[in-house]
């Protein structure tokens, strides 16, 4: 987000909300339409945090919209409770609690499964509202007679009982909603949510409890929905049962998609377009029942051609018109300047726990992994000492990657035990292991492609700075102590300083490779596993990367898998050779080069690789 002008977005929003009643009516918007747009927009902010920022597409938001609204309306119309704002807040809180419970179920799965489950759950809510609870919700009639808010400040009574006073009321809450949402997406939690959207596996591997954060986003979205539902009842003096209907969810999804997901303002823009068009088709073009067909076609075309919605397109256009400063010159200078990672201070491994810094840092006993009938790893005994750099080689299919995955607890071993710094980590999760100081850089890049390099490294560094799970929803990223330093330090080490503000998708392959290592490094691991760090690199890049690896090895234990033996043997003190899922032999590079069994293992295949 914009660092130099921290409150620019908020100020622009406030200005737009103040100007809207003077401008929009001239474009054919009635005040009640504008009020509805605000409610949809507020509802959509929460949905956008869930969908646009976290990547969870829920078709069940109507459940929370309805729950919040009904609860508030019930309090206000049936119980004699007369504090309108308090009722809305209580409704939103109830929606949040319901969201938490539903989230526990729905978030067991992601992607399409998640979408289907949310649809089904929302249907249940509709049935329950309609029947078993109809004594409380009014069944199909809903709850009429919801009062408008009144604030008595002693010297003046504010009553929001007309369209425009209601506008000020809603605009105020929309503004509060957007300010809170901006804080959330700019907070460490926001950064992790976008990481979950781009690459949940890596987000977890960097030490974040992604389930916890997803649940957080889900609850936040539910609270926004519940709050908006409460406002709906107050706005029109009537809480309708159709708030619970699938169409409500569908509409917020469509409006967000039209406006642009991941922008926070997308839902507002989408709602504006949606309500405007439906009014225009029916009352200006007099399309009758055909209005929905035309609107449907417009929607499909927008999804096909405007990938990031209207707000996204505007941002892109703005980027084009200001001619985003090309980084090519900088790139040239960066490449030409000699880069010496050894000149940069190393990132110290974090010391966690009180285990002695000598002896084995990692020990695996009897490690076995079977996939059905196939044995990937069999009875591996393996130990690495503090400060050691270990190489692992083996022909393709020797089980190297599976072995790594077990060490980082990405997959659980079928049998065997893994000890890290004296504690048994068998069966714990990849996030926990990362928090303990053991992490991996991946054979195939696992980056957060839609984010900048800086944001990538930030997400990695946050794991160390904040632990596995923390609800610092309102803290600025810059408020996390040591975070910026860690990010810039890591970027300098992997020679990406000049690239910090570029999106990952714009990086060259070699740069992505370095960022891959940088992500692992930014967690300050005491034990770093590198799965084929040199894969796919040009000879010159290899030389640079070897120098980089040497530099980051200072004060750190590393295990490296690679096929480039020349480079590997230059780096490591000891080599373990795997073959057919077993440890074939272990020794210094010199011993391995001359070992007959190793020769045979490799020569059994093709001659070339042992060079």
């Amino acid at each position, binding site marked *: 987000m914009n660092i130099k002008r921290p409150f620019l977005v908020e100020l622009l929003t406030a200005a737009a909300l103040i100007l809207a009643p003077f401008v929009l009516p001239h474009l054919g918007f009635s005040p009640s339409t504008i009020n509805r747009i605000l409610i949809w927009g507020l509802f959509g902010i929460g949905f956008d945090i869930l*969908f646009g920022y976290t*990547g969870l*597409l829920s078709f069940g938001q109507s459940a929370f919209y309805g729950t919040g609204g009904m609860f508030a309306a019930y309090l206000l119309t049936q119980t004699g409770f007369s504090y309108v704002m308090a009722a809305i807040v209580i409704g939103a809180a109830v929606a949040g609690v319901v969201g938490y419970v539903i989230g526990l*179920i729905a978030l*067991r*799965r*992601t*992607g*399409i*499964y998640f*979408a*289907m*489950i949310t*649809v*089904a*759950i929302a*249907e*249940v809510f509709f*049935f*329950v509202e309609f*029947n*078993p609870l109809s004594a409380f919700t009014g069944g199909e009639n809903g709850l009429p007679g919801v009062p408008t808010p009144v604030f008595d400040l002693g010297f003046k009574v504010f009553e929001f009982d007309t369209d425009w006073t209601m506008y000020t009321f809603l605009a105020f809450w929309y503004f509060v909603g957007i300010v809170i949402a901006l804080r959330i997406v700019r907070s460490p939690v926001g950064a992790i949510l976008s990481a979950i959207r781009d690459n949940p596996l890596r987000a977890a591997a960097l030490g974040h409890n992604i389930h916890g954060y997803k649940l957080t986003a889900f609850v936040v979205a539910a609270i926004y929905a519940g709050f908006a539902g409460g406002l709906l009842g107050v706005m029109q003096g009537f809480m309708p049962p159709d708030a619970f209907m*699938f169409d409500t969810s*569908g509409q917020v*999804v*469509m409006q967000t*998609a039209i406006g642009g*997901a991941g922008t926070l303002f997308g839902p507002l823009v989408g709602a504006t377009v949606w309500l405007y068009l439906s009014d225009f088709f029916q009352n200006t073009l007099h399309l009758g*029942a*055909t209005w*929905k*067909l035309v*609107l*449907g*076609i417009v*929607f*499909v075309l927008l*999804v*096909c051609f405007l*990938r990031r919605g209207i707000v996204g397109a505007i941002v892109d256009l703005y980027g084009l018109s200001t001619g985003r400063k090309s980084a090519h010159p900088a790139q040239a200078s960066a490449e030409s300047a000699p880069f010496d990672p050894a000149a940069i201070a190393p990132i110290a491994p974090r010391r966690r726990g009180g285990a002695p810094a000598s002896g084995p840092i990692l020990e695996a006993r009897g490690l076995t992994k079977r996939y059905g009938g196939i044995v990937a790893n069999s009875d591996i005994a393996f130990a690495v000492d503090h400060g050691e750099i270990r190489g692992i080689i083996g022909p393709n299919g020797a089980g190297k990657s599976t072995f790594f995955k077990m060490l980082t607890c990405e997959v659980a071993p079928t049998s065997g035990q893994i000890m890290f710094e004296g504690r048994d980590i068998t069966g714990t999760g990849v996030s926990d292991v990362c928090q303990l100081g053991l992490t991996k850089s991946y054979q195939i890049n696992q980056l957060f492609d839609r984010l900048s390099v800086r944001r990538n490294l930030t997400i990695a560094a946050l794991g160390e700075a904040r632990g596995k799970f923390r609800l610092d929803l309102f803290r600025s990223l810059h408020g996390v102590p040591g975070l910026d330093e860690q990010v810039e330090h890591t970027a300098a080490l992997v020679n990406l300083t000049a690239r910090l503000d570029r999106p990952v998708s714009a990086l060259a392959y070699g740069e992505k490779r370095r960022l891959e290592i940088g992500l692992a490094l930014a967690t300050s691991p005491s034990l770093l596993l590198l799965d084929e760090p040199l894969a796919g690199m040009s000879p010159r890049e290899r030389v640079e990367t070897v120098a980089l690896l040497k530099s980051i090895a200072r004060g750190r234990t590393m295990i490296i898998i690679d096929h480039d033996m020349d480079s590997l043997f230059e780096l490591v003190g000891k080599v373990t050779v795997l073959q057919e899922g077993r440890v074939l032999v272990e020794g210094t590079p010199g011993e391995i080069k001359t070992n007959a069994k190793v020769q045979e293992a490799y020569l059994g295949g093709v001659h070339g690789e042992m060079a």
Partner: protein
Amino acid sequence: MINWANFISQCFNGLVLGALLALISSGLTIIYGTLGVLNLAHGAMFMLGGYAGWVAYTYTGSFLVAVVAGSLFVMIVGVVVERLIIRHFYTRPHEDQLLVTFGLGIVFVEAVRFFFGSMSQTVPPPGLLVGITNLGFMIYPTYRLALLGIVAVALVALYFVLYRTRIGMIVRAGIEDSVMVDSLGIDVYRIFMLVFGIGAMAAGFAGIVNAPVVSIAPDVGEAILVQTFVVVVIGGVGSFLGAIIGGLIAGEIISITSMFNPGYSYVVLFVAMTLVLVLRPHGLLGTAGRE
């Protein structure tokens, strides 16, 4: 107290409903399993099958022609939609695929309303299958009995296509590992187009054979879609067999709970889905491969 005659009848109702849900869901699930696209327009495909069949029926008066026309038309719609739209979404996020198929569903429903109006239409069953049959222990509409057979035959045919033909092997391989199929040098796009067509056809076929039971209207697919989701979640995404088992379970739950309190049929159904999710997150027969 349970009335056993009623109980058996209800089991039968569940079977018929379940078989139909199984057929529709299997279309949804093979599309998803192969292409990785959840087709939210699947309910609309079901509806289109009914309308195409009804149009054919009004011109020819033949139920058989209606069934063939309904299925083929929806298959063609499926192929065209895949070729023109869905194909461009394989490389885009899942969410975009959901959005575009959701929008297409609305377009189909409203287009049908535009051309044929909102009045519901009936396709009568073929003369032989009109009336009711006395099974001794209960009486049952003849066409519904036949429907059970018709759907069973369709499922078996689908099974043969999936498990006994080259295309089916590729489809199933694709469900296991789409990258591998890619690397085999098979023209994946052609296969995808075909799969989308077949999946859509399953819905279209179900739409027209169901038309004599439930008269068709533009909105007929909406309710079905949510039920197929539940079926697919229970059975396991991408699993053909799972769709069948899930369909039967869903059908029986809806029917049997209605003996006690029909208002809760759907609530119980969704509770069952939740239970499956808690105990077997990938569904009864699902694999962990696909998300």
